[in-house]
C-alpha cells in the first residue's frame, strides 16, 4: 500500500450533495467548513486504519455520508460557538477600553492592547474556590444559574450572522429568540429565592419588576417590525430592509425605544437594578462565587451581544449595506459584527453617562414612556403600511 492511496480516502465533496444535509436547500458556510475539516481529519484516520487493517469496514464507515454529517455537525457547533465567544470577548474588551477612555483613564493593559485581560479574568475566576453557601437550596441554586447562563449562550449562538451563517433558519426564528431571551428573569427570580439571602431576594424581585416594565413595549416593537417586513424570519426581515430602507428611518421612535428596552433586557446601567451594587452588594449574584460568577458575567455580555444584534437586525439592515447589499457574500458576517459592536459602543456610552434608575422610576419609564412610544410607533407603521409606502 503506497502513500498515494491517501487520496482515495481524503476526498472533498459539496456538503449539499450529502443526502443527510441538515439545512435543506440553503448554503451554510460554517457547516461547509466543518464538513471539509472532517472530510480531511476523518479521511486521514480512515486511511491510517486501512493501512494497518486493509479492507476493514471501519474505514469506509468513517467516510460514509452519515458519519461525516454527524461529525461535521459537532464541528459546526464548535465553530459557531467559538465565533460568538470571541465576538463577545471582543465586545468585553471594547467596553473596558472605551469606558476607560470615557472616564479619562487608559483601560486594561494586560497583553495585546488589553485583550488578554479576558484570559486573565477567566483564569482567576476559574482558580477561585467554588463556594456553595450552607443554607442555600442547592438544587435550585445550581439549575437556575445554569439556565441563565445556558439560555444566554444558546440565543447568542442562534443569532444568524448572515444568509450563509446560521444555526437554524426557522420561519419563526425571531419569535424563538425573543422567547428565550425573556426567560432569564424568571430564573433570576427563582435564584433570588433559593439563595436564602436578603440582597439576592430583593435583586430577584427587582429582575421581575424590571421585566414587567420593558417586556411589553419590546414585544410591541418587535411586532411592529414583523408587521413591516411581513415575516418572522430574520433573513426575510434583513432582505426586506435591503429592498426598502433600513427600518430606523420610518421607525426612529421605535429604534430609540428598542435601544433602551434592550439595555434593560441585558441588565446594564442604567437599568441594572437586579445587581445594583451600591445598595444590594451584587444583587441576585451575591452568593455565587468563583467560576459561577465568572460565567454569569460572561452570560451578561452574551446578552448584551444578543441585544445589540437584535437591534442591528431589526433596525439597521442586519448584514446588508444599503446599495451594495452583501457584495455577493463578501464577508457579510464581518459587517454584521461591526454593526453589533457599534451598537454596543452606544450602550457603553450610556453606561458611562447615566446613573442607575430606581425601581419605581423604571416602572414609570416602562409604562408611561416606553409603552406609549411603542404604540405610537406601531400606529405610524400601520399608517405607512395602509398608505402603501411599504
Amino acid at each position, binding site marked *: 500500500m503506497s502513500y498515494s492511496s491517501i487520496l482515495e480516502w481524503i476526498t472533498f465533496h459539496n456538503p449539499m450533495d450529502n443526502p443527510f444535509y441538515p439545512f435543506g436547500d440553503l448554503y451554510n458556510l460554517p457547516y461547509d467548513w466543518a464538513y471539509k475539516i472532517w472530510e480531511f481529519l476523518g479521511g486521514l484516520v480512515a486511511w491510517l486504519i486501512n493501512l494497518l487493517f486493509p479492507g476493514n469496514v471501519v474505514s469506509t464507515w468513517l467516510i460514509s455520508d452519515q458519519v461525516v454529517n454527524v461529525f461535521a455537525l459537532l464541528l459546526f457547533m464548535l465553530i459557531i460557538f467559538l465565533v460568538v465567544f470571541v465576538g463577545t470577548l471582543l465586545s468585553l474588551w471594547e467596553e473596558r477600553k472605551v469606558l476607560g477612555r470615557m472616564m479619562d483613564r487608559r483601560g486594561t493593559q494586560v497583553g495585546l492592547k488589553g485583550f488578554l485581560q479576558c484570559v486573565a479574568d477567566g483564569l482567576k475566576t476559574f482558580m477561585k474556590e467554588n463556594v456553595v453557601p450552607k443554607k442555600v437550596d442547592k438544587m435550585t441554586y445550581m439549575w437556575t444559574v445554569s439556565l441563565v447562563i445556558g439560555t444566554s449562550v444558546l440565543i447568542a449562538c442562534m443569532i444568524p450572522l448572515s444568509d450563509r451563517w446560521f444555526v437554524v433558519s426557522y420561519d419563526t426564528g425571531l419569535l424563538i429568540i425573543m422567547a428565550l431571551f425573556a426567560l432569564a428573569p424568571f430564573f433570576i427570580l427563582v435564584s433570588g429565592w433559593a439563595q436564602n439571602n436578603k440582597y439576592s431576594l*430583593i435583586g430577584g424581585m427587582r429582575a421581575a419588576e424590571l421585566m414587567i416594565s420593558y417586556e411589553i413595549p419590546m414585544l410591541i416593537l418587535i411586532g411592529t417590525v414583523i408587521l413591516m417586513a411581513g415575516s418572522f424570519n430574520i433573513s426575510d426581515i434583513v432582505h426586506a430592509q435591503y429592498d426598502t430602507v433600513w427600518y430606523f428611518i420610518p421607525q426612529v421612535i421605535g429604534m430609540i425605544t428598542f435601544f433602551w428596552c434592550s439595555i434593560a433586557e441585558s441588565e446594564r446601567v442604567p437599568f441594572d437594578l437586579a445587581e445594583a451594587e451600591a445598595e444590594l452588594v451584587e444583587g441576585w449574584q451575591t452568593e455565587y462565587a468563583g467560576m459561577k460568577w465568572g460565567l454569569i458575567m460572561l452570560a451578561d455580555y452574551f446578552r448584551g451581544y444578543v441585544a445589540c444584534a437584535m437591534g442591528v437586525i431589526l433596525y439597521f439592515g442586519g448584514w446588508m449595506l444599503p446599495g451594495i447589499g452583501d457584495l455577493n457574500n463578501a464577508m457579510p458576517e464581518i459587517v454584521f459584527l461591526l454593526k453589533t459592536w457599534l451598537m454596543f459602543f452606544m450602550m457603553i456610552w450610556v453606561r458611562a453617562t447615566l446613573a442607575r434608575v430606581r425601581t419605581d422610576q423604571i416602572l414609570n419609564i416602562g409604562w408611561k414612556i416606553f409603552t406609549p412610544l411603542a404604540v405610537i410607533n406601531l400606529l405610524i407603521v400601520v399608517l405607512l403600511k395602509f398608505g402603501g409606502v411599504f
Partner: protein
Amino acid sequence: MMPEPEIKLDSMNTDRMTVIMGPQHPFSHGLWTLKVEVDGEIVTDAEPIIGYLHRGWEKECENRTYPKIIPMADRLCYSASMTWSHIYCMTVEKALDVDIPDKAKYLRIVADEICRIQSHLMWLAAVGTDLGNLTVFLWAMREREFFLDLNVRLCGARMTTNYPRIGGVRNDTTEYFDRDCMRCVERFEKRLWDIIALVDDSSVFVSRMQGISRLTREQVANLGVTGPAMRGCGVDFDIRRDDPYDGYDEMDFEVPVLKEGDTYARYMVRIEEMFQSCEIIRQAMKKIQDMPRSAPYRLKVPSAVPEGTHFARLEDPRGESLMYLISDGTDKPYRLKVRSPIFVNVSAAKPMVQGCRIADVPAVMAMVDMCLGETDR
C-alpha cells in the same frame, strides 16, 4: 423628570425585613453598619451602628505632649486632615492665649480650603459610585489629584498634611506654590463644570436625588445636623462667616444656602461650596503675595499650657467640628474631647432614610459624607 408617587406606609400589609447594610457593604464608605428595616422596598426604620473603628484617640492624646498630637489630629479624617490639625492648634492657641502671625492665618486658610475642595471631591466621587456611575467617580478623583499635588507642594504630604503648628504653620509657601495654586484653582473652576454637566444636566441623576429625604429646618436643628447637610435645609449658618476664626473675617465669600432640604439641595450646596472655596483661596493667596517674603509665619510658644478649659470650633468640610481641651498646667493635655460632625449627622440617619426606597439609601447617606475616623475616634 416625573412626579414622585406618593408612598403610603400602611397601605401594604407585608412582613418587614431587616437588611443589614455594612460593615462590609459597598455603600458604607468606611466601617459602619446601617440596619435598615424595609417594607417591600420602602424603608420604615434605620439604625446606624458605629464603633468598629474606635482607636481610643482621645485617651491616647492624654499621654502625648501638645506638639505630638498634631500628626494624630491629621489621622482623625483621611480627607479633612488639615482642618482637624488646624482646629487642634487653634484650641491650644486659645489656651495659651497667643495671636498667630497674619501670614500663618492666610496660609492656614489656603490649606483649609484646598482640604475642603479635595474632601468635597472625594465625596463627589463617592456619590458617583453610590448612584451607579463610575465616570463621576473617576473624574472627581482626577480633579482631586491636582489639589493633592498642591498639598505636596505646600507641606510634602498628600493627605495627612501635618502642616499647622501651635503658633503658626510649619513652613512658608514653597517656590512657585502661589503660581501653581492659582493655575490649579482656575483650571478646576472650568473642569468642575464638566462634572456639573454630567450630573446636573442629566435627568436620571437629578431624579435620583430630588425630592427624597426631605428635612425641615426645625428637624435639622433638633437633630444637631451641621455643615452642608444643614445648609441644604435652609439654615443659614457657617462658622467661617458667623464666628470667624483665623482671618476668615477678612475674606469675602458667600455661604450657599438652599431651602429645599432634599438630597439634591445637599448636593448643590457642596458643589457651590467648592466654587466659593476657590474664591477664598484666591483672596488668601493675594494677601500672602502682598506680604514680604520675610514675614513671620510661626511663633515660638511655651510647651506647657496653663490650667483651664478651652474650646475652639471651625467649619469642617463635613460640618461643625469642635475640640474641648482641659489642661492641667503640664505639657500634656488632661483631657481632649472631640466633637465630630459626622458622629452627630449620622444619628439623623433614621429621619433621613425613613420613607425612602432601599435604592435611595446610598444616595441619601452619600450626602452625609461619612468618615469613620473622626466618628469613632
